[in-house]
Structures are given as structure tokens and as C-alpha cells.
């Protein structure tokens, strides 16, 4: 079949659409759903600007078909903020000036978010390894690493308010 009816849970709400087989997940998000927070950078699986979480796992949405996400959960950068409150990873990038032009930022945020879900206290090498599939052409990696560390510290203190 060349056309498919899909239901995707995007940031917690179900989105239904009729899509072509060849439609990429990133185009589904940006064009079908008009959620333009997810960026298209290189479009060749290198830069990671299009990173989203698919069932909680960070992947490059330019290299996944929309139809592959049928019945699955997608989290985009728009899903980080809750009730008007920035997620600590977003706050970290703000506090530590983790962006310059901002193009890579949605991808960096999603990869950083996924890392902190698994590792609440990542070392600098662990952060650098985790973001090695996300390119920042402003070369602002030092502040990006600081931003993730800032978020990690915030998440840890939120989890253990007494300490």
C-alpha cells in the first residue's frame, strides 16, 4: 500500500493522519502536524538536528518513516515543557548559554534529555559521547556540556530536596 492511516502518540496526544509510505517522520511532524520545533539539518543522518524520541529512544527523524511510528510514542522538543515550566534540560541550556544560532538545539535537548533519563550524573566524556551524533556548527560544545550538567544537577536536587 502506498497510503496508510496512522495514529501516533505525539507528546502524549494521539494524532491521526493519512500518510504516504515515503513520508519521513520529520516531515510528518513539521508539515502534517505543523510542529516545527524539530529541525531538518543535513537530511542525511549525520547532524542530529531532527532528533526525537521514539518510544523513549532518541533517533534521527529524517531516517524513520512516519508509517513506522504508527501506534508508537514520539516525543519532540515541544513536549519537554510542562504546564508552562521549562524542563531542567531547557533551563540548563538557558542558564549556561548552551546555544548560539540555535539550529542544533532541539536535537541537543532531546539527546540530552534521553541521556539524563538513563544517567542522572553523567561525566563530561559520557555527555560528549552521547551527543557525538549531534553536530553544533557554531562549535558551542563546551557550553552544551555545561548545560547538560546543569540540568543533571537540577534533576538530582529535585529528586533529593534534602541533600
Amino acid at each position: 500500500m502506498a497510503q496508510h492511516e496512522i495514529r501516533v502518540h505525539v507528546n502524549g496526544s494521539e494524532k491521526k493522519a493519512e500518510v504516504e509510505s515515503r513520508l519521513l517522520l520529520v516531515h510528518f511532524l513539521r508539515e502534517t502536524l505543523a510542529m516545527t520545533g524539530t529541525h531538518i539539518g543535513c537530511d542525511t543522518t549525520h547532524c542530529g538536528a531532527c532528533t526525537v524520541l521514539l518510544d523513549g529512544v532518541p533517533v534521527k527523524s529524517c531516517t524513520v518513516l512516519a508509517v513506522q511510528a504508527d501506534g508508537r510514542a514520539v516525543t519532540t522538543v515541544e513536549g519537554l515543557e510542562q504546564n508552562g515550566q521549562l524542563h531542567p534540560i531547557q533551563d540548563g541550556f538557558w542558564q549556561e548559554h548552551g546555544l548560539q544560532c540555535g539550529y542544533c538545539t532541539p536535537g541537543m535537548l532531546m539527546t540530552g534529555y534521553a541521556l539524563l533519563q538513563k544517567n542522572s550524573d553523567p561525566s563530561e566524556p559520557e555527555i560528549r559521547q552521547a551527543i557525538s551524533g549531534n553536530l553544533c556548527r557554531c562549535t558551542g560544545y563546551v557550553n552544551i556540556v555545561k548545560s547538560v550538567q546543569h540540568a543533571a544537577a537540577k534533576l538530582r536536587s529535585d529528586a533529593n530536596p534534602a541533600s
Partner: protein
Amino acid sequence: MIPPPFDYHAPQTLAEALQLLQSHGAESGEAKVLSGGQSLLPLLKLRLGATGHLVDINRIPGLEYLKEEGGVLKIGGRTRESALEHSDLVRTKYPLLADTAEVIADPLVRNLATVGGNLAHGDPANDHPATMLAYGAQIVATGPGGERTIAADDFFLGLFSTALQPNEILTEIRIPVPPARSGGAYVKLERKVGDFATAAAAVQLTLKASGEIEKIGIALTNAGPTPIRAADAETFLTGQMPTAERIAEAAKRAAAATSPSADRRGQIEYKREMARVLAARAIKRAIDRATERTKEH
């Protein structure tokens, strides 16, 4: 970039997937298996390839696993690279495999990319082919008539060409469980994370109690139209004490087995020289690891 149009199928069982491959022009190669998609989708997007039908195997249960059984490590064809990367079993007992998984593309790609796909794509620039040659792995192909096993040595036929038939799916990889005093290493030179190898060497070996090399597999990535087994270097070292001189000579012989082509990653002479350097490093690291493991036991 948008791929050319195709029909998409999401079978729930292996039998259904094989049926789809068979009925949608398996003979003409008009149907392709979508596993991790991290090579296939870019290829379609860049319009370097086209297909009438994509058969997505991601909804079939039971294709992702890592288990030791009957003297072999069985890896499900759709096992993600990230699963190898984070497996304690792989890290402690299969260091060559762990080394390889860590340098394939980047962490995001490895969350989807699969071991079976890395092999079935038939790209000599991919990292697992050399690894599987060095291990002497067996590849299981499932087709309409059932399963057959293909030795890694017989699997890679040419550029993007493998022994896998268009109506078959690569369902499992079998690596012999390494005996005592074994070690392995994969050493890759890449310009940046995510790049294909400028050159890379895979080595798996077993030492005798007396220190001589009992068995060794040496293979090279991106050094010709297929992954290359450095048979001459293997023969040269087998039964010998691995002295610095012998390792250097074996590395030279490994480099002589390559036929790289010049591209943005370097000239032929440079790549061949890097193959020599990396082969020597991989042999040394494999010996160190075999020795460490022996001390632990």
C-alpha cells in the same frame, strides 16, 4: 530529500514477511527488507536506489536477542547496535564485537541500526563484515524453504552484493564462543564520529598455554570491494610466538592483501599504510586482552 514512491508492508510474522518478499517480485529484487533503515532510507532518499516494496520487519517479535547456546553466541538479525554496545556479556567476552559496535555511525544511529542490516547491506565500508570474518561467524538466512547457514567467508560477494537471496531474510548471526586465552580487537581510523572507516582492522585470536598463537582471524574494513580476510598474515602468525618482528611482518602482509580506492578519505598508498598500522595495533591489543583474560582465570 524525499524517497521515490514505494509500497510499505508491516508484517507481524516472519512467515508473512517471507511471503511478501516472495510475492512482490523477490526475483527481480523489487522488494527490500527494512530493518534499522539507517543505510536503506538514506540510500532511497539520495535516490541511489529504488524499490517497489518495503517489507518492514520491525513489528515481528523475536528477532532481537543475544544468547550463548550450543557453543555459539547467537545474535538475532534485528538486534540493534546499541544492544551490543550495552551488553555486559559482549563487553566481557566478545571485546572485538564490543569495539565494533561502539564505532558504528553514532549513538543515535546505533539505536536503530541492526547487526543483520550492517551485514546484509553488503557495504565493505561497514564495520561488522570484517568483525564477522575475523570471528569465523556463520550467517543464518531464512527463506521460503527454511533456514540455511552461510559462512561469513562465503557471504560477501562484491560491492553491495551478498549471498543472501532476494527472498531471504538474515535472521541470525552465530559467533563461536571463544575458548580460554582468547582476545580480540577492532581498531578503526575515522575522520569524525559517524564516518566510514578510512581503514580498520578486526582481529580475533586464541593463544596456546605456551604463548604461541593457536588460531587467528584478521580482516580489514573499507580496503577493497568486499571486506578482506588477511589470510597470508593469519598463516604467517599461526603456531608462532607473536614477537614484535612477527607482528610487524604480519601487518605488512595484511596491508598487502588490501585493494583500497582513493577518495576523500585518502590516497591508495595512505590507506594501505593505515591498514598496516591498524592491523599491527589490533593484533597487539587482541594479544593483550587474551593475556589479561588468562590472568583472570
